[in-house]
């Protein structure tokens, strides 16, 4: 679905990514893990067109997108759910979701998005309960669900999630990740960036590990889960092997 070759990304003069290769397979969950500052968010921003980058990013059906701007990329259904959620605080839940449709609805379009709204509500019933509440009044977990729901309204073909577990209580996290798996089972290609390595390895099909802007390790998640280097670096020495 998405092929990244030799990606370099820059914050001004600082090179944050130094030649990354990643393949995101269609219909699978690919995850990216690494310590703080490794460049995970930078990678997502490179794909969504928010920072300066060079290299090659090829999307199935669209071709090369390395030189496209963020609007083009969003319009081509590659949706980045940013870390920290960034829901619109002054808009209601319903309006937040509505805003997600801009890339196919257009400013003055007449199409109804009722179907898409229903789908999101069935995925996240809690959002329907809070339909008219303003964004800022939602709890952290609800905001994350809203952010993902909003991205779903954009009818993405690739859904990119940046640290969805951040700041959430464990029980909320497991509920959330159940939903993420559910979305994937419905056929969505997902690129998941996570600080929580264990979680990421559990739900994903493929994993890439990066550090200081370079790719270190990659492979099927089931293999990496049991790799001693991974366990030691990212899962903690005292932890037993995961299943």
């Amino acid at each position, binding site marked *: 679905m998405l092929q990244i070759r030799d990606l370099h990304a820059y914050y001004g003069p600082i090179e944050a990514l130094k030649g990354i290769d990643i393949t995101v397979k269609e219909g699978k969950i690919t995850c990216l893990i690494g310590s703080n500052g490794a460049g995970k968010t930078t990678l997502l921003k490179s794909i969504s067109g928010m920072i300066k980058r060079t290299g090659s990013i090829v999307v199935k059906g669209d071709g090369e997108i390395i030189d496209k701007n*963020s609007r083009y990329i969003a319009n081509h259904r590659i949706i980045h759910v940013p870390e920290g959620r960034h829901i619109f605080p002054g808009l209601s839940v319903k309006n937040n979701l509505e805003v997600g449709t801009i890339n196919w609805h257009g400013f003055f379009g007449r199409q109804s998005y009722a179907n898409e709204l229903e789908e999101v509500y069935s995925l996240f019933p809690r959002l329907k309960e809070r339909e008219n509440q303003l964004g800022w009044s939602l709890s952290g977990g609800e905001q994350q669900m809203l952010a993902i729901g909003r991205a779903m309204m954009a009818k993405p073909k690739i859904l990119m999630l940046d640290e969805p577990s951040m700041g959430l209580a464990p029980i909320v996290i497991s509920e959330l990740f159940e939903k993420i798996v559910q979305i994937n089972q419905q056929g969505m290609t997902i690129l998941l960036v996570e600080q929580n390595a264990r979680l990421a390895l559990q739900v994903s099909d493929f994993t890439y590990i990066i550090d200081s802007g370079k790719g270190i390790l990659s492979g099927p998640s089931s293999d990496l889960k049991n790799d001693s280097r991974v366990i030691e670096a990212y899962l903690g020495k005292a932890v037993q092997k995961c299943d």
Partner: protein
Amino acid sequence: MNINTIVSLAVNGISMGMIYALMAMGLILLIRAIGVMNFAQGDLLMFGAFITCWLTVDLKLPLWAMIPLSIVCFVVVGIIFMFTAYWPLRNASYPAATVISTMGAAMALKEIATLIWGSLPRSMPPLMKNPATGKVAVLKIGSITIQWQFILTIIVGSVFIYLVFVLFDKLYAGRMMQAAAQDKYAAELLGIPTILTTMATYVIVVALASTGGYMIAPIFMVSNTLGTLQLRAFAGVVIGGFGNIKGAILGSLLIGVVEAFSTIQFSQYKDAVVFLVLIVFLLVRPQGLFGEKIADKA
């Protein structure tokens, strides 16, 4: 102190309040969308007054031609204003740079108006004339006389306020603009063209202020000192509670009425009374009438 005086003062106060409200709405929109406190707001009103005066008096255009043409002018002014006073500084490391540039824009607007139309004030014919006498039209209810111009200002002001609310609350495009204003990063990730939404915001702000200018031009005469009215709008914004459009409107109306009634005793201290009210609010209820509706993000 008879009923006629009270009604006249109230009508005058509310109609002036409407003008301040139009400016105040513009201020809030810019604060929310761009984080910029626009010190050129009053001069946008002044410039709008000059433009409409030019179209009506110099070019002698009838109303049906003047309105669309003035809208075109407002759009142009809005876009130029945005790209000169805001755009080049939007990523400046010094966050007050955009605010200071609006101060510069205020001076520039005054000078440009003087360059184009001269430094002399100009008068504009009243918006509503009594066809029989050729003088200003008045409404008589019993013993009470009210000038139609003030009523018209109240009506037009209300219509514009309503339109702004409809835009932002009901229209899809308005929701996009709000989203872009509340979180530009997320909006761009979803594909919202934030340059366009910002431009639209600026155009709306200019249109609001300029319409205010058009309404008061026949009453006040068009001169390049009209910009000082923005101080009342600022006071209205603060009294209403920062960042809240409804509050800004109510605060402005309150200021207009206070201003009118203060002339009963202190006509030369009108400004001082207005600011006294402002100070009292800041001391007693600093969050304004409606406080902050949007808390910081969780």
